């Protein structure tokens, strides 16, 4: 097997993926990863992920498993660790055996991954793994993947948070139809990066859930808004602690490793210092978009 490599840049973080030149995954990647391709001569990748045959966990100890607590339809994750690597085992919903094993060096820069299962399962797991490596490797750089639907309006990014099914995407749709010049940036996992000058910027990513929206675009974050269903439309600015709680529940992260938890904490606090956070109690209607946009753009 000949390994072909390609560099990508998401949120101004460069990374490299190496994969069998004949793999069907290259074709699938065109649509979602294509917009993020970077030139081969760009340097300073924050991680290098190679898809290969066989990642052995050996006698590394089990650190974490969500097997008992995972909600139906979500990925089961088992985590192991030894003195060289973290190991992650992914089991897709409905699958009995692991669909992929990932090893990633303790410095989070070198990852190896082996895939199994049907082509569709492989594609899903592959996406999960790239997303996961990105989340880990960017931890030190005040960067987070937000579980969010994100639009741009009046030159800024407005990010909607909420549990699956509460209407993040619906609320984005309401902005798109009610407010002129609104653009959907990403519908599932945009990235927030806080730069050295303290500014928080939102970036599109190759991970957008069921909506095919893989835009390589960026905008300063104007507000982060938690969407809560209600029989009326009302926006309320959150206190510092409420903001932290709101962001914490919607940002990817591994917190049982203290260093990673510290990194995530620094990022969340930097975001709160830079961006107003809100709670929007709302109906799934266009009036909600008007009430919300008026409140958050006038802050």
């Amino acid at each position: 097997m000949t390994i072909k490599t390609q560099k990508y840049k998401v949120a101004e973080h460069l990374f490299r993926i190496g994969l069998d030149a004949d793999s069907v995954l290259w074709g699938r990647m065109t649509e979602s990863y294509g917009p993020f391709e970077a030139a081969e001569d760009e340097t300073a990748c924050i991680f290098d992920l190679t898809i290969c045959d066989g990642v052995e966990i050996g006698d590394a100890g089990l650190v974490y498993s969500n097997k008992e607590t995972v909600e139906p339809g979500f990925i089961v994750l088992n985590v192991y660790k030894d003195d060289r690597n973290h190991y992650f085992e992914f089991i897709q919903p409905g699958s009995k055996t692991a669909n992929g094993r990932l090893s990633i060096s303790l410095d989070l820069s070198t990852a190896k991954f082996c895939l199994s299962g049907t082509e569709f399962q492989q594609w899903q797991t592959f996406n999960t793994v790239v997303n996961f490596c990105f989340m880990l490797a960017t931890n030190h750089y005040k960067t987070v993947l937000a579980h969010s639907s994100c639009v741009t309006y009046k030159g800024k990014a407005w990010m909607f948070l909420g549990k699956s099914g509460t209407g993040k995407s619906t609320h984005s749709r309401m902005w798109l139809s009610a407010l002129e010049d609104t653009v959907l940036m990403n519908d599932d996992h945009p990235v927030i990066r806080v730069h050295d000058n303290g500014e928080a910027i939102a970036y599109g990513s190759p991970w957008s859930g069921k909506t095919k929206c893989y835009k390589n675009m960026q905008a300063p974050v104007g507000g982060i808004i938690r969407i809560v269903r209600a029989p009326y439309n009302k926006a309320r600015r959150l206190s510092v602690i409420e903001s932290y709680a709101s962001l914490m529940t919607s940002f990817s992260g591994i917190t049982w490793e203290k260093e990673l938890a510290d990194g995530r904490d620094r990022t969340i606090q930097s975001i709160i210092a830079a961006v107003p956070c809100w709670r929007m109690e709302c109906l799934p209607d266009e009036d909600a978009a008007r009430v919300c946009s008026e409140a958050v753009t006038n802050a």
Partner: protein
Amino acid sequence: MKIVEGFRLREIMGQATVIGEGVNQVDFNKLITLNATAAYLWKEVEGKDFNQANLADLLVKKYGIDEELAQKDAAAVLDKWIEIGLVK
């Protein structure tokens, strides 16, 4: 008793706050804010075995209050921590 593993005291914009970050606390999903006194006690007993009397001693040492009041305050803090599941 002991602080349950995985709970960490952090300073969020100046506010002492306990966050569940350990393997067994990943789904805890709450933030517990502590006042200055509770934060002081937390830092003193973090990682150690302790009981109500130890907390009361710490209060006497730091604030110079009388033993009876210290016992009462220590009991109140400890009850709350037990109720929330922060200590076992």
